[in-house]
């Protein structure tokens, strides 16, 4: 099967200053390792008793040793032995660790526990002690030291690999392989190893730097490389004896150790970042003004958005527009539903309204106002307080929006204590009342519980209760019931409706389920590919005119769907055309007759580098 994959991430990493520096350093190190002994071997071994124990000079930048040999040449020649020993030890650690870790992962539970316990015991030994122990066994030779340092690192990697492998072994694709009768060794080779390898490489690079230091230390102590061979550690040992007379004799090899160590550590860092680099999408204009939030009339729209455009920085640094000119208005107390598939821009639109988009998003709009506050700029302190009190967000996964280490009660009272400066006792009484109002059973006990002790539906009701702690004007609920069962969904939406009635807040409900939204909202806004395609009165949904809306309604089976016929299917959008599918002009995908190209087509970088 053809499996060629481009590696643009690596090239991009190389283009960064750090990536380039690491690449250049590695190249230099490789050259010195390969050619150093051949080119400088003579200079390093030429004795010149007349010039013995000289300090740093132009002829001998690092000075000379007891026999008058040039120390710079010796440091460069020692590179090969030092680097190869460090790499050898690292290879022993990594390969040994990977074998132990992966074997442990595919073993039966009892044996796995035994292996892991052994690894834990070995881990608690200091590596130097292990190395000393091993050098007693293998004698004080360079190879012995390499084996010692290498084996001392095995438990570290065994632990790393077994942890990584355990998380891969729990995935469904490994379960699937098991069901298909894949032998354990094949599963390890095909699935475990490739998925464990990248983090392993990162750690191997960092570990190489540690091994290098370990060797320097062992040789310094006289346990590593023995005369007449020499590595950086031995040179350091010799130089250290006259450090007060000729500091360069010790500083020279020391520099080589430090620079190589830093280089290897940086390599690990560059590997771990590989391709995950994301740029900021242009700063926002600074906040101008007095810092006093303007007063708002009660009948003014809660949300007023005109021509909202949101772009994100793509991996290659260009900007990709995801929302292309959305208009949205939410009146006070109005319940508006935002419907669309994933990638339609519905969540991004809502996040822009709530001012919650991160620094990698570039937001532009003719108007983006929440009750008089311009959300295209970072809010002033006064505005921040008002936003905290008047906006409530409810996300799909309540576990990620609740702090796992704080009790429910603490999180409920936090909002009011921070923004409204309510006294703790009063806030607590209010929290209790809020939980009761969203019909959380045993509310007093729940206040003392942590989020993970509650069920999904219960957590979502706690999130709604946080909204009741303040006086929200807008509740943004982003797929609040998608992870929940239908019966729990009904309870959560009931709590949401109750909260809305009580506080008089408007609701912006985001969902992919048009039937759900139509059953809950006053008005439905249908989005596709970053545009609003239609606004709908849910009571008159049969009047939907846009083919996409009609397709979306038709493709969901209900309890009356004809079982003898295939379900109608929403045609996927032609990838390079923002025209709605089911549109007569766009159905012929080979000879496209869709509308002319518009600026900001989805999936394409647009407006590279235009200032905000």
């Amino acid at each position: 099967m053809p499996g060629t994959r481009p590696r643009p991430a690596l090239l991009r990493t190389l283009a960064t200053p750090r990536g380039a520096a690491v690449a250049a350093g590695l190249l230099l190190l490789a050259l010195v390792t390969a050619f150093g002994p051949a080119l400088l071997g003579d200079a390093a071994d030429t004795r010149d008793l007349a010039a013995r124990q000289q300090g740093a000079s132009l002829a001998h930048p690092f000075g000379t040793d007891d026999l008058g040999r040039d120390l710079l040449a010796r440091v460069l020649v020692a590179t090969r032995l030092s680097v190869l020993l460090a790499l050898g030890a690292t290879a022993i650690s990594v390969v040994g660790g990977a074998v132990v870790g992966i074997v442990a992962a595919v073993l039966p539970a009892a044996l796995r526990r035994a292996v892991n316990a052994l690894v834990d015991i070995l881990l608690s030994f200091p590596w130097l002690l292990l190395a000393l122990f091993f050098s007693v066994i293998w004698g004080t030779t360079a190879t012995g030291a390499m084996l010692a340092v290498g084996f001392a690192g095995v438990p570290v990697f065994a632990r790393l690999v077994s942890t990584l492998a355990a998380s891969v072994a729990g995935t469904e694709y490994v379960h699937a392989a098991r069901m298909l009768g894949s032998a354990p060794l094949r599963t390890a080779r095909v699935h475990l190893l490739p998925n464990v390898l990248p983090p392993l490489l990162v750690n191997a690079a960092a570990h190489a730097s540690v091994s290098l230091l370990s060797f320097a230390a062992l040789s310094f102590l006289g346990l590593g490389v023995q005369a007449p061979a020499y590595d950086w550690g031995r040179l350091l040992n010799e130089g250290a004896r006259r450090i007060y007379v000729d500091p360069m004799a010790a500083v020279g090899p020391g520099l080589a150790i430090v620079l190589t160590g830093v280089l290897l550590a940086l390599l690990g860092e560059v590997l771990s970042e590989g391709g995950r680099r994301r740029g900021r999408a242009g700063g926002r204009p600074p906040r101008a003004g007095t810092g006093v939030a303007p007063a708002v009339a009660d009948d003014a729209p809660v949300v007023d958005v005109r021509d909202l455009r949101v772009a994100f920085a793509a991996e290659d640094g260009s900007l990709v527009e995801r929302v292309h000119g959305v208009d949205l208005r939410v009146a006070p107390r109005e319940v508006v539903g935002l419907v669309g598939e994933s990638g339609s821009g519905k969540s991004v639109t809502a996040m822009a309204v709530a001012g919650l988009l991160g620094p990698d998003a570039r937001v532009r709009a003719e108007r983006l106002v929440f009750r008089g506050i311009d959300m295209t700029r970072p809010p002033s302190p006064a505005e921040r307080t008002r936003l905290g009190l008047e906006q409530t967000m409810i996300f799909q996964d309540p576990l990620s929006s609740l702090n796992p280490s704080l009790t429910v009660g603490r999180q409920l009272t936090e909002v009011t204590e921070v923004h409204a400066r309510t006294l703790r006792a009063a806030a607590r009484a209010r929290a209790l009342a809020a939980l009761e109002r969203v019909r959380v059973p045993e509310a007093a006990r729940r206040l003392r519980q942590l989020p993970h002790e509650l069920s999904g539906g219960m957590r979502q009701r706690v999130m709604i209760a946080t909204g009741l702690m303040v006086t929200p004007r807008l509740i943004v609920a982003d797929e609040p019931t998608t992870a929940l069962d239908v019966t729990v969904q009904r309870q959560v939406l009931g709590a949401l409706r109750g909260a809305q009635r009580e506080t008089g807040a408007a609701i912006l409900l985001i969902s992919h389920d048009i039937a759900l939204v139509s059953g809950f909202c006053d008005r439905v806004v249908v989005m596709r590919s970053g545009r609003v395609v239609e606004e709908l009165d849910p009571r008159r949904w049969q009047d939907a005119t846009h083919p996409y809306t009609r397709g979306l309604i038709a493709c969901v089976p209900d309890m009356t769907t004809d079982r003898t016929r295939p379900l109608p299917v929403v045609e996927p959008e032609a990838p390079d055309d923002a025209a709605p599918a089911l549109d007569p002009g766009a159905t012929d995908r080979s000879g496209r007759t869709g509308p002319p190209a518009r600026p900001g087509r989805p999936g394409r970088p647009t407006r590279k580098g235009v200032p905000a």
Partner: protein
Amino acid sequence: MSELELRGVTVRYGHGARAQTAVDAVDLTVRPGTTHGLVGESGSGKSTLARAAVGLVRPTAGQVFLGRVDVTGPSRYARRTRRRVQMVFQDPMSALDPRLPVGLSVAEGLLATGRRTSRADREARVTALLDRVQIDPRRAGDLPGAFSGGQRQRITIARALAAEPEVLVADEITSALDVSVQGVVLNLIRDLQADLALTVLFISHNLAVVRYVSDDVSVMRAGRVVEHGPAERVLADPADPYTRELLRSIPVMGQPLVLADA
């Protein structure tokens, strides 16, 4: 065509006082060549039951039969026979190895047939399977990341089909997908079931979806089957109050949700 029969299957997790019974003495028969819907909320034990059926979980008690062969145990024969029962998972993101080209993932399914095949045969088979699930076979070398959720789910279905299963267990296969993609996958499952005369155990919390694909339905709650029978009868005239509650909770286009507690 084979019958899948679960007889008195009990699955208990943990030991002693902390033990939890996920599945409690469930009897369930999927008639050969039909689709059996299994409905219930999260925690009702329906996914655990599915895992017991394919051998990912060892039942604490009870047996699983495939066409009268006991496939419960760890014996070699049971394991080999069990490969004729394959499963499609809920989350197409985690069901494919992110570092394995999708063609190789599908080829993995061929392992289960136990036949030794040449490379050319394997590639031809993968091409045919990808074509069958409407994925362009020229993309066999792409990684899963290059595909959308719906496409990935079709690839996992192709992988299951490669094993030439007699029984397919579909565990919430559309709940991680957009509604517009759900229809494509449901149509595919129905087509495959009819073309290959598969026996399908279709698990979902969505009653409307289950009704659309299933001939028979079982409703699970707290590890037990509370109601079962032909889909039309169970869903038109549910006897159990819990089934009625499920039915009432389904949002229907254009009808305000009934939010007040009954």
